[in-house]
């Protein structure tokens, strides 16, 4: 006998008689040999319908009827209104999605191929709070100390010397080229910083000379000259930062000198061993 028929013998009572005859005819070699003891035991202990009737004490329940408990019917579908003229107005929709309504393949999530650099989120070191004195490490003013005014959304720092002390103008610099010291000046009272954003410092491109002018080879290199607007802003911010330095009281004189002097190492001084 095959496995399938065994199962049927076990589970389907109605077909029992037929299979039991089959079983007697064939004998139970296969199942005993296979060692599927449970199935074999069941077959061996197979009782007639009458014996099962008594064994199960079915007489207890004969002629008795238990009242059916009515379960509240769960809704399977919902009627939804459909707008539009030729759409029939209504549609019955299954609450649970049928299998056929699922897509056969995974959906491909599309995302923008590139995030613009200007959209990046900027993180600054904790030490780079507005008002800290920083040591500049690169650029024209390297070695000088300056005051950090603002962290710009482009990821750059807005600094000023102040210009009257050490010649560092209002300027942007990348935080990698800066050492933050623990010296601080309270610049919370400085006004007019809002207008000094990235747009303010954007470079103005010089227009190309037309070919007709005949001055292609004699193109002059233009030297940077600060505009009147910048000069005015520098003056304004300098005045306020100097006042902020004065507010340090005991250290005001030292701080002025500190900002005036260049940074440098003496012998046997190593930046990784020092506190700034």
């Amino acid at each position: 006998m095959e496995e399938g028929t065994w199962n049927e013998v076990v589970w389907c009572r109605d077909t029992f008689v037929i299979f039991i005859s089959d079983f007697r005819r064939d004998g139970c070699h296969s199942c005993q040999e296979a060692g599927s003891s449970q199935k074999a035991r069941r077959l061996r202990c197979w009782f007639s319908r009458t014996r099962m009737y008594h064994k199960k004490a079915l007489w207890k329940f004969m002629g008795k009827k238990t009242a059916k408990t009515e379960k509240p019917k769960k809704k399977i579908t919902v009627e939804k209104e459909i707008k539009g003229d030729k759409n029939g107005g209504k549609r019955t929709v299954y609450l649970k999605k049928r299998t056929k309504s699922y897509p056969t393949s995974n959906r491909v999530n599309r995302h923008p191929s590139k995030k613009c650099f200007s959209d990046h989120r900027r993180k600054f070191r904790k030490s780079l709070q507005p008002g800290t004195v920083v040591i500049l490490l690169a650029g024209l003013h390297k070695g000088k100390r300056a005051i950090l005014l603002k962290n710009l959304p482009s990821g750059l720092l807005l600094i000023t010397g102040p210009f009257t002390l050490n010649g560092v103008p209002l300027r942007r610099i990348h935080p990698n080229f800066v050492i933050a010291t623990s010296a601080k000046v309270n610049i919370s009272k400085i006004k007019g910083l809002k207008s000094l954003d990235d747009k303010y410092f954007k470079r103005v491109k010089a227009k190309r000379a037309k070919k007709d002018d005949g001055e292609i080879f004699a193109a002059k290199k233009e030297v940077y000259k600060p505009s009147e607007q910048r000069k005015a802003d520098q003056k304004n911010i300098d005045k306020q930062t100097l006042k902020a330095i004065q507010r340090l009281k005991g250290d005001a004189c030292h701080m002025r000198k500190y900002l005036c002097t260049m940074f440098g190492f003496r012998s046997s001084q190593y930046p990784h061993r020092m506190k700034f």
Partner: protein
Amino acid sequence: MPFKRFVETGRVALISDGPNKGKLCCIVDVINQTRALVDGPETGVPRQGIRLNQIHLTKFRLRFPYTGSTRVVRKAWKEAKLDEKWAASKWAGKMEAKKKRAELTDFDRFKLNSARSTRNKLRTTAFLHLKRLNKKSKTAKKDAKPAKKPAAPKKAK
């Protein structure tokens, strides 16, 4: 010059390496040529064997019998007032100064330098002034003594 500081029972030493670096301890017993039993009940050094190259010997020595218990060491330590003596020593002062110097910030360093330069200026002017006086007196009396340096004002930091 003969040696004066020996690895011996009661010798106070400074631990220069390991987890107890920078703490004072006292040698209780010598284990072998390279190791000693050490205890520091007042400084938080547990009784332990330690390699001799991990300690620096100081000039202090406590008096107690060798292999004395922690209680004995503590008693001797307190009676000798070792903590006070150590704090008053130059060695401890130098260690303190080193620590302070390491903790200076950039601004502090600048302030220290400026204070030092002002002090040095004062000192040189005073020195030159005395030198000039000396020269004058020398010309007046040929057997004048050389001028003494004025006592230097203490460091700002």
